[in-house]
């Protein structure tokens, strides 16, 4: 239990001792990280829409498309195309029907329900057609599952206690706690609007939990989770700088 703080303290002491014995200078650095995808061939980006499921309190397709468009407008060099959000669930369902399957795909409640729709991302002809319509942009699409979570578990919290002399002490108490929240899982898919082929895809997954008695609107939880994912999303398309400090030695 105390091994970790002792180890951290000893390494800090070692660093301080070394610093005292050597001429050293702390210096701030910014490490540039190249984007994962070379988007040099594109001038425009179309956030087309998403196959979304989970809770009905948030329209995952509409909200994700809006949010990514606004982020790209301010944080990327690409021109963001304003268009209607594609109803990809319907597009995928039509694709299945034309393939001979008459049954309607199931509603998307769980991650496994997405499988019935995923074929739309591999439909090169469809994306090529969309690309031609919007002057061959980079197309962003994917899946979004925003689902309610419930976790009951033993958690440790601190509690004030007073002894017979009235002295205050804080002791750790383990209590059973009911917690509720949401999970946001899915995949960002980047498609070449010239060929309709998938260039890159990236899975994501985040969770947030609150005390059961806390009421948090689903939409605000959705934005909180998306806030965590945005940097990863943007780093696919544009370079980033990671700030830090290092020690120069003499």
């Amino acid at each position, binding site marked *: 239990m105390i091994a970790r703080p002792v180890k951290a303290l000893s*390494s800090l002491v*070692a*660093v301080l*001792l*070394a*610093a005292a014995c*050597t001429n*050293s*200078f702390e*210096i701030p*650095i*910014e*490490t*540039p*990280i*190249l984007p*994962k995808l070379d988007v040099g061939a594109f001038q425009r980006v179309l956030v087309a829409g998403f196959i979304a499921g989970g809770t009905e309190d948030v329209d995952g397709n509409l909200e994700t498309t809006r949010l990514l468009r606004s982020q790209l407008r301010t944080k990327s060099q690409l021109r963001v195309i304003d268009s209607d959000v594609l109803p990809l669930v319907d597009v995928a369902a039509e694709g299945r029907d034309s393939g001979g399957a008459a049954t309607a795909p199931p509603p998307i409640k769980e991650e496994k329900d997405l499988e019935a729709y995923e074929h739309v991302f591999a439909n090169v002809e469809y994306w090529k057609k969309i690309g031609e319509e919007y002057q061959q942009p980079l197309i962003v699409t994917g899946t979004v599952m925003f689902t309610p979570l419930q976790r009951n578990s033993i958690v440790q919290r601190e509690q004030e206690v007073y002894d017979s002399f009235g002295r205050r002490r804080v002791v750790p108490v383990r209590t059973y706690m009911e917690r509720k929240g949401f999970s946001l899982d899915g995949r960002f898919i980047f498609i070449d609007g010239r060929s309709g082929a998938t260039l890159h895809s*990236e*899975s994501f997954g985040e969770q947030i939990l609150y005390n059961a008695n806390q009421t948090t609107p689903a939409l605000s939880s959705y934005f909180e989770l998306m806030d965590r994912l945005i940097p*990863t999303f943007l*780093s696919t398309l544009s370079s980033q700088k*990671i700030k*830090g400090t*290092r*020690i*120069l*030695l*003499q």
Partner: protein
Amino acid sequence: MRTAAIPLAVFLLTLVTVPLQADARSDAKKQVEFGITVAQRGLWREAIYRWERAAQIDPSYAPAHNNLAIAYEHEGDLAKARTAYERALELEPGNALIKQNYELFREINDRTTRQGTQ
């Protein structure tokens, strides 16, 4: 006669090479110091030049490799940074400051590698 000459030759050789090594270290130190001054003013390219010179003059001088690694990191050349950190640690495996720099570097490098493979 001949056996007495060998230790004498070794002694003379030591007398000649030790000052040479000391000179190399002193020259390398000067380059490293100048590199630090310019890096602190944001002139990283010049700093790299100085620290590369220092590493050439005295390849066993760990601070030159450590500083070079930092400069390469700043320039985004992560492969070169890793090589320079590893060389610095090879020369001074117990140096806590180099170890700390290397750990911080690895955190960034691992993150970018992970992202790249997804």
